[in-house]
C-alpha cells in the first residue's frame, strides 16, 4: 500500500479514535452522575438522558470526519485512490482539529454535564440552564469539526 494512503488512514483513525475516546469519557462521567440522580428519583431518567447525550456529539463529529476521509481514500467503493505522501499528510492534518479538540472538549463537557445532572436533581425546573452550560463547550468542537471539514474538502485527490 502506498505511504500516502497509510497517512490518510492514520488521519481517519485519529479523528475517530481521539474524539470517540473523549466522548466515551464524557458520556461515562455524566452517566455515573445520572445513575446517582435516578437512584434518588426515577423520574430523573429522561432529563439525565438528555444531559448525557450532549458530550456524545464529539464522537459523532470525529466519526463523520473519519468516514469522509475513508470515502475520499476510496475504501468505500470505486477503487483505492492513488495518493501522494503530501496529499496523505494533508488528509492527516485535516483530521487533527476534530480529533484533538473533540478529545478535550468532550471530557470538559462531560464534567459540566455531570454537575448539570446534580443541578437538575436538586432543581428539576432548571434543566434549560444546565443544558446551556454544557452546550457552551460544544461550540469549540463545532468549530474544530467545521475546520476539519473545510480542510478535507480543500485537499484535492
Amino acid at each position, binding site marked *: 500500500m502506498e505511504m500516502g494512503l497509510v497517512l490518510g488512514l492514520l488521519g481517519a483513525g485519529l479523528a475517530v479514535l481521539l474524539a470517540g475516546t473523549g466522548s466515551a469519557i464524557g458520556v461515562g462521567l455524566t452517566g455515573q452522575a445520572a445513575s446517582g440522580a435516578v437512584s434518588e428519583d426515577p423520574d430523573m431518567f429522561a432529563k439525565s438522558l438528555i444531559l448525557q447525550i450532549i458530550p456524545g456529539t464529539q464522537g459523532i463529529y470525529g466519526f463523520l470526519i473519519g468516514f469522509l476521509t475513508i470515502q475520499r481514500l476510496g475504501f468505500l467503493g470505486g477503487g483505492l485512490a492513488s495518493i501522494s505522501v503530501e496529499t496523505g499528510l494533508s488528509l492527516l492534518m485535516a483530521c487533527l482539529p476534530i480529533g484533538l479538540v473533540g478529545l478535550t472538549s468532550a471530557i470538559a463537557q462531560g464534567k459540566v454535564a455531570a454537575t448539570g445532572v446534580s443541578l437538575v436533581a436538586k432543581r428539576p425546573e432548571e434543566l*434549560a440552564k444546565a443544558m446551556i452550560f454544557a452546550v*457552551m463547550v460544544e*461550540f469549540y468542537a463545532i468549530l474544530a469539526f467545521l475546520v476539519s*471539514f473545510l480542510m478535507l474538502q480543500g485537499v484535492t485527490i
Partner: protein
Amino acid sequence: MAVAQMKRLLVAAHRSEREELLDELQRLGVVEIQELDPKDLEEGPKVAKENPGDELLPLEDKLGEVRYVLDFLDRHFPPPRTLIEQFAGSKVPIDLEELDRTGDGFDYGEIYRQCRKLDDALTELNNRRGRLQTNMEQVEPWLNLDIPLDAPRETNWVRLLIGSISLRGEAEAASQLEDAVPESCWIEVARDRDRVRIVVILPRDAVETAQEILARYDFAPMMLPRCAGTAKEFYQECQDECVRIDEECAQVEEAIKDLIGYRFQLRTLYDYLGLARDRLLATTNLVRTEKACLLQGWVREEDVNQVINRLEGRLESATVQVQDPEPDEETPVALNNGPLSRPFEVLMELYSLPTRFQLDPTGFVAFFFGLFFAMAMTDAGYGIMLAAICFVLLRKVHMSPLGEKTFQLLCLGGLATVVAGALSGGWWGDNIITIKPLWFSPLDQPLTFLILSLGLGIIHLYVGMFLGFYENVKKGDVLTGIYDQGLWMVLVAGLILWLAAGEANPQLANAAKWATIISAVGVILTGGREYKNIFVRLGTGLYSLYNVTGYLSDILSYSRLLGLGMATGIIANVINMVAMMVFELPVVGPIGTLIILVGGHLFNLFISVVGSYVHCSRLQYVEFFGKFYEGGGRAFAPFAPETKYVYLEE
C-alpha cells in the same frame, strides 16, 4: 410589545367573607397579593395583621396523611409514566365542580387507616422473614447432623461436644485429642471452605482436657435453638414459614392493589387541600380591624374590570379601589406581546425581565432569534419535523406556561427553518432529495454564508446600539446617547467600510477613514467624562477606545451561525450516505436503511435544535443585550391555583 401597565388594587371586605375573597382571587389567578404591614397604614382603628387562625394545623395534618397514602401506594404500585410525561409532567384536567365534590365529599380516613394497617403488617412480616433467614443461615452448615437438636448432650458417663473447628487445625486437633483422650470419638458432620463441623463424644471426666485442646484450634460450639427435630427438619420448617410469609405478603399487596382505584380521588383531594392551604397562608398578607379585612395587590390594567366585576358581583361586602402606582415606584413586571412574539418572552424570563421604566425588547429578540435559529438549522426537512413535533406536543400534553412558550417558540423556529432550508436547498441534507436552492447552498459557498452571518450580526448589534441610544434620549440624556452609542456607531461603521472598501473604492475608503478618526477622537475625549482631572479623563478615554476589540469580537461571534448551519447539513448528508450504503446489503438492507435514516435524522435534529437554541440565546444575551439592556424587573407572580396532579379546566 411593551411592559404591561400595573394597577394597585385595594380590596376591603367583611371578615366573614375573607375565605370567599381569597377563593375568588385564587380562581381568577390575575392578582399578585402584596404583604400589608399594619405599621405602614396611617392610623385609624386598631389594625392588626390577619392570621390564618387555628385552621392551618389540622389542614397541614390532613395534607400529610393524604401525602402518606399517595406515597405508600406509589411505592408499591408506581404509576406508569411515559418518557414524555417524565419530561413534561402528567396533570389531568378536572372541572371545578368535580374538584369541590371530591374535596368536600371524599372521606379518605378509612383508606388512611387501612394503609397504616397494611404498612404495619408488611413491616411485621418483613421482620419475621429477616429473623427466619438468620436462623436458616445458621442452620445451613449443620444439615447433615442427624440427631434432634434438643437431644440430650450429656448423660452420667458421656458428653457430646458439637461445634466447628478451623480446617487447618483439624488433623492436629484430632491427633492430639486421640493421644490425650483415647476413648474419645471424633465424627465429622460437614466441611466447607474454612471450617469443619464436628461432633466429639467424650467420657465426662475428660471434657475439660478435650475443651482445652480444641480451644487451641479455634473451636466454636454450635449455637442453634434447641428445638425438636433434626437440623434438616428445622430448616424445612423455616422454609415453610417463609413461604407462608410470602403468601401473606402477596395478600397484603393484593389489598393495597384494591386501594389503587382511589388514587385519582386521593390526588384530587391532595390538590384541593393544597389550594386551601395556599389560601390560608395568603391571609397573612392581609390586615384586619375587628370587623373588616383589607387586601393589597397588583393587577394588570386589562384585568382590572374583570376583577372588580367578579369581586363586587359575588361578594356582598367587597369594595374595590384601583390606584396608579407612584411615578417612580417599582411594580412587578408582566410582558404584553402579540401572538407571534409572545413565545419569545421565555428568553426574557430566563435572562431578566425589564423594569417598567425600560423598553421591552421582546419583539426585536423574537425577530432576530427566529432569523438566527433558522440560519443555524438551515434544513427545511428538519424545520418540518421540528414544527410538527412541537405542534403535536402542544396539542397532546398539558404544560406549564414556561414549557408551553418554549415549544411554541420551537414551533415558530421550525417554520422559519423551513424557509431558510428552502433558500439553501437543504431537505434532510442535499444528497437524497435534491431540490435546487432558491438562493445558495452554504455547503457550496461557505464564504458567502459567513459574510451573510457577519452582516446580519452587524445589523443586530446596530439595532442594539440604537435601542440604547433611544433609551438615553427617552431619559432626556441626549448627550450620553451621542457619546456612548452615536460615536461608536460611526466608529464601528467607519472602520468596517474603511477595511472593506480598501483599494476598490478609494473615495469611500477615504471618507470612512476620516469618519473613523473623528469618532475615535470623540471617544477619547468623552470616554472618561466622569473624571474631573484632565489627564485621568483622557487616559480613561483612550482606554475606552480599546473597546473597539470588543465590538470586533462581537461581530466575529456571529460566525457560529456558519458553524452550526454547516454542521447540520454535513451530518445529515453523512447519515444519508451511510443509509444508502446499508441499502446494498442483502435481506436486512432496506430495513437497516430505514432505521438509520429515521434514527439518524431524529438524533441530528435533537443536537441541532439544542445547539441552535443555546447559541442563538447567547447571541441575544451577550452580544445584543450587552449594548443596551439592563433588566432587573421582578416577575409578576399572581396568586393562582398551583397544583401537583390536576389542573382546572376553563
